[in-house]
C-alpha cells in the first residue's frame, strides 16, 4: 500500500468516525432522561480518543497521543461522576419520601 493510498484510507476512516460521532450526538439530543445521555456522553468520549489516535497517524506526529490518554481518563471520570450524581439524587428522593 503506497503512502498516498494509506493517507487517503486513514482520512476515510476519520470521516467515518466523525459520522459515527454525529450519530452519537443524536442520542445525546434525543435521550429521554439523564442515563441515556450519560451513555451517549461515554461513547462520545471514546470516539474523541479514537479520532485523536487516527489523527496522530494521519499527521505522523505521535505527540498527539498524549491528548488521547488525557481524554480517555477525563471521559471515564466524567461518566463515573454522572453515575454517582444519579445514584445520589435517587437516594435523596427516597429519603424525602420516607
Amino acid at each position, binding site marked *: 500500500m503506497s503512502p498516498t493510498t494509506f493517507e487517503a484510507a486513514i482520512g476515510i*476512516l476519520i470521516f467515518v468516525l466523525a459520522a459515527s460521532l454525529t450519530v452519537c450526538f443524536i442520542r445525546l439530543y434525543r435521550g429521554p432522561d439523564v442515563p441515556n445521555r450519560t451513555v451517549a456522553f461515554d461513547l462520545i468520549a471514546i470516539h474523541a480518543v*479514537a479520532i485523536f*489516535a487516527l489523527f496522530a*497517524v494521519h499527521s505522523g506526529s505521535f505527540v498527539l497521543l498524549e491528548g488521547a490518554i488525557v481524554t480517555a481518563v477525563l471521559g471515564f471520570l466524567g*461518566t463515573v461522576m454522572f*453515575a454517582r450524581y*444519579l445514584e445520589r439524587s435517587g437516594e435523596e428522593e427516597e429519603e424525602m419520601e420516607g
Partner: protein
Amino acid sequence: MSEELIRLLVVGVAGLGVAFMAIAALGINVLPDIYTRMHAAGKAATLGVSGILLATGIYFWDASQLPRMVALILLFFITGPIATTTMARATYRAQQRFERLILRHDDLADARQD
C-alpha cells in the same frame, strides 16, 4: 516486515475498530432500552477503540509508542466495565417505574421489596 505490509496491517486493524465504533453508535440509537444501549456502548466501543489504538501503536513502532498504546488499551479494559456497571447500578436504583423494564430475569427484584 516491510513498510507496505505495516501500512496494510494498520489500515486493516483500524478499519475493524472503526466498524465496531460505528456499530456501537448505531446501537445506542436503534436499541429500545437503556440497558441494551449500555450493552452496545460498553462492549462494542471498547473493542473498537482497542483496535484503533493497536493500529496506532503498530504504526508508531519505530517511535516505541506500542507499549503506551497497550497500556491505554489495558486502561480501557479496566475502566470500561467499571463505568458501565456504575451507570447500570445508578440507573436501576434511580428509576421510578419498574414494570417498564425489558428484563426477563430481574434478580434484584426480591432485594428491592425489602
